[in-house]
């Protein structure tokens, strides 16, 4: 199947990613670990732009950028070169941002995503390094705010801006690209996507191969998809009514789910780029081979290995490798003797599903425990032990608990306040699978007590069978295996 792209949609993305796993900022020694600190406590003359302070390039930031470039299969520049992007804004302490201009650290890369018609290549035009500005905090809501406070803790944080070719053909592909991109960065251990402000996206979109419109500063993957869906609809409607799309920059109103015009091309700012005279070019071409050696196994390679090594399905492998910490957790479970296929089902399908249901985002893995934080409230933390998953998979494989009971155990661990092992939970709740004769007895009793349902079933009403199974489960307090109960009833009634 080939995707025809009937509406001629072209989407390109510009993604700003904070290299928040680095210990220090881009051009000074300030700690980058500011997220839980009081405002303006992670600052110095350099990131406050005090007169006379000078930038010194953080080599680790350059190394991280090269890592990203190599993971994106891009070309790495011979040397670093920085420019000043001049504009006035209160969060910008120097009145210019130090960034890269016509000689980015990375050019011509690519990312393979699961597209509308199978594997699809998205070209990476370039990726460059720059510094983050500070943050404006409005007192109250933006509209009614009586004042603005500035927090320069973020000022000078190292960023990588990645620009893609307009290769995505649907909002879904854009979202898939972002998921994959974030996944790669987390594999490289240069980025923690759970931190506030870690990733900001600008999306360019055009329909019928026409004029592009830019949507600025969207803060979530879901937001990008929604903004694009709205904007494509808007553009198609403008054209349907005989109008024309003008080249402009729009803003996405997250609350209302609409895009609003910010400025047209004529109003575009002139940033007066010129070489940053305070930074000398740093030759980095010799670093590349060494950095290439340190590159970890990336998502695609890990997925192939999982399929081969553990004999699991492509779907499970995809899901398990969608997060480096989840992949590591799964391998930890297998390494402790759990059956890989069963472990894959329980990790990728049930466990991950329960996390999503609870809005929990995986945030750590230390070899024994995988940790999560609540996506909307990072203060809410939770965790799950490798050993618990191993025990549960074993109990299930040995037929000691039903699948329903196993799900119940996972839920209890995620929702429980006390630390308990699966075995303790099973014992406490009496979730052990019932002995076969107990089930047989419950089946006989159920048939005897529900003559009407039995008649209906024999008369062809399949639904009644479900009712009967339910009765058996009730009698056994859920310890029976539903499948076994079902088989026993059929055997009893139909011989």
């Amino acid at each position, binding site marked *: 199947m080939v995707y025809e792209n009937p509406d001629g949609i072209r989407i390109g993305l510009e993604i700003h990613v904070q290299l928040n796993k680095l210990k220090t900022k881009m051009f000074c020694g300030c700690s980058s670990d500011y997220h839980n600190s009081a405002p303006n406590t992670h600052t110095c003359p350099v990131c406050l732009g005090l007169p006379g302070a000078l930038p010194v390039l953080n080599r680790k930031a350059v190394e991280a950028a090269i890592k990203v470039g190599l993971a994106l299969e891009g070309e790495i520049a011979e040397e670093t070169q920085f420019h000043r992007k001049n504009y006035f804004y209160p969060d910008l302490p120097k009145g210019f941002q130090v960034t890269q201009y016509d000689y980015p650290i990375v050019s011509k890369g690519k990312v393979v995503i699961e597209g509308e018609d199978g594997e699809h290549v998205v070209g990476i035009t370039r990726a460059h390094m720059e510094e983050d500005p500070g943050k404006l905090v409005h007192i109250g809501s933006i509209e009614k705010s009586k004042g603005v406070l500035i927090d320069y803790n973020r000022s000078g944080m190292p960023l990588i801006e990645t620009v893609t070719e307009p290769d995505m053909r649907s909002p879904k592909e854009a979202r898939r690209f972002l998921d994959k991109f974030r996944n790669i960065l987390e594999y490289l251990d240069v980025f923690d996507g759970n931190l506030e402000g870690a990733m900001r996206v600008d999306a360019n979109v055009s329909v019928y191969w026409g004029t592009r419109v830019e949507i600025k500063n969207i803060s979530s993957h879901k937001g990008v998809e929604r903004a694009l869906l709205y904007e494509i609809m808007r553009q198609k409607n403008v054209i349907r009514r005989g109008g024309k799309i003008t080249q402009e920059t729009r803003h996405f109103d997250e609350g209302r789910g609409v895009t609003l015009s910010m400025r047209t091309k004529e109003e575009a700012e002139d940033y007066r780029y*010129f070489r940053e005279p305070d930074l000398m070019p740093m030759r980095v071409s010799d670093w590349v081979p060494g950095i290439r050696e340190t590159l970890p196994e990336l998502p695609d390679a890990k997925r192939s290995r999982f399929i081969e090594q553990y004999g699991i399905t492509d779907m499970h492998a995809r899901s398990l490798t969608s997060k480096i910490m989840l992949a590591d957790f799964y391998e930890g479970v297998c390494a402790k003797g759990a059956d890989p296929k069963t472990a894959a089902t329980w990790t990728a399908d049930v466990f991950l599903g329960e996390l999503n249901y609870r809005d929990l985002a995986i945030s750590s893995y230390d070899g024994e425990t995988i940790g999560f934080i609540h996506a909307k409230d990072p203060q809410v933390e939770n965790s799950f032990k490798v050993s618990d998953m191993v025990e549960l998979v074993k109990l299930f494989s040995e037929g000691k608990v039903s699948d329903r009971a196993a799900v119940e155990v996972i839920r209890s661990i995620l929702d429980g306040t006390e630390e308990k092992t699966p075995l303790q939970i099973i014992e406490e709740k009496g979730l052990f699978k019932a002995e076969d004769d107990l089930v047989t007895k419950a089946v006989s009793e159920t048939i005897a007590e529900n003559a009407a349902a039995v008649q209906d079933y024999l008369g062809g009403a399949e639904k009644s069978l479900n009712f009967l199974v339910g009765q058996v489960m009730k009698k056994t307090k859920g310890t029976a295996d539903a499948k076994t109960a079902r088989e026993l009833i059929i055997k009893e009634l139909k011989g």
Partner: protein
Amino acid sequence: MAKWMSVAQVKEKIRESSAEEVTASYLEVIEKSKINGYVAVSEKAVEQAREIDAKGHEGPLAGVPIAIKDNISVVGMQNSCGSKILEGYVPPFNAHVIEKLQEAGAVILGKTNMDEFAMGSSTETSYYGPTANPWDLERVPGGSSGGSAAVVAAGEAPFALGSDTGGSVRCPAAFCGVVGLKPTYGAVSRYGVVAYANSLEQVGPLANNVTDIAVLMDVIGGYDRRDSTSIDRKTAYQEALVDDVKGLKIGVPKEFFGEGIHQDVEKAVWDSIHRYEELGASWEEVSMPNIKYALASYYIIAMSEASSNLARFDGTRYGFRDRGENWHSMVSATRAEGFGTEVKRRILLGTYALSAGYHDKYYLKALKVRTLVKQDFDRALSKVDVLMAPTMPNPAFKKGEKIEDPLTLYLSDVNTCPINLAGVPSISVPCGFTDGLPIGLQIMGKPFDEPTVLRTAYTFEQNTDYHTKRPPEVA
């Protein structure tokens, strides 16, 4: 106590009496000053000197007082850059050169006047009023480090630090009859020095003699990891002070003796070159055909960089703040009120030169010319050891004479700014007088060949007495 002491004499005096007494004596002289050379006098100078006395005079400059240009950050002292916009701004960190001076035991007397943000050649654009030339109080001391040069000439400090973006150390040195060095780009850290044009400027010493210049360079020179443009290279400045120019090859670029040069200046410089000849050096004319474009290139690059450097002065975080309806109008009002005319002119011109549509025509072209000027220096200095020329084509002019005509004022940098484009070292030494006003001889050298430049200057000084003359009006 005698004014105009050399550093060696100051140290001798400290041994005889104390650092405290020496510092106090300079503060007394400053109290009676007629030149407005200091924007601020340190309240802690005497206390610092006393501490140094208590510690026992460790370090090469133990107890020796020094004056600092008001664009070099000193903890606890306002760093105004001669501008209203930095009123009340006190840096929380020391410039690298200040750290080095304090390690060496120097006592900071105060901050010296300057053209606003070092933009000028007369020290008349300062928010704190003009500084007078000690040789003629009606005349300018040159700029932009006019305060530093004037206080040294007037005996209000044994030596001083300035900064030189297009001649800002050498011009006032020439006008005030003192010695001033613009080191090789990268020889002295710029950390903590408020930038006017980053790619051009260096901190430079001003003193009454070449020896003290070398003494100061041995303290402030050298690598600093906080300045990415500083070069990791060791130079022994005082060791270069040898009275010997036998075999020295001098190049005389005729382009530095252009139209409008004062005939006494021209004569004094040629007399100096002939004096070198008598001392065993030889000279030849060299051609530097691109020098005529240097001034235009210099101003475009300097103003472009300045337009960006000065963007941070918006009233948001420090310094002067005017009122406004919202942030943008507050910034506009602050900058309209806080910057002087010349600074605004240069910000506007620099912004224009970097704008889309003009960037290639002006900024990029200026960079290309800069490369050509550099090549002129490389070529000339491949044949000779040093170049000699007048520092300034004219002696110090009257206050108010040129301030209304910026172009004429810019033209006075014609002989100093090419050196900043090339990044080479250059010193100005006193070499004569015209109508009682000092004349400066400019000696330029190869990158990082300060030793040859200093040796050449030192030999001249040992064999002439211009540097011993003192301005009668402040004596």
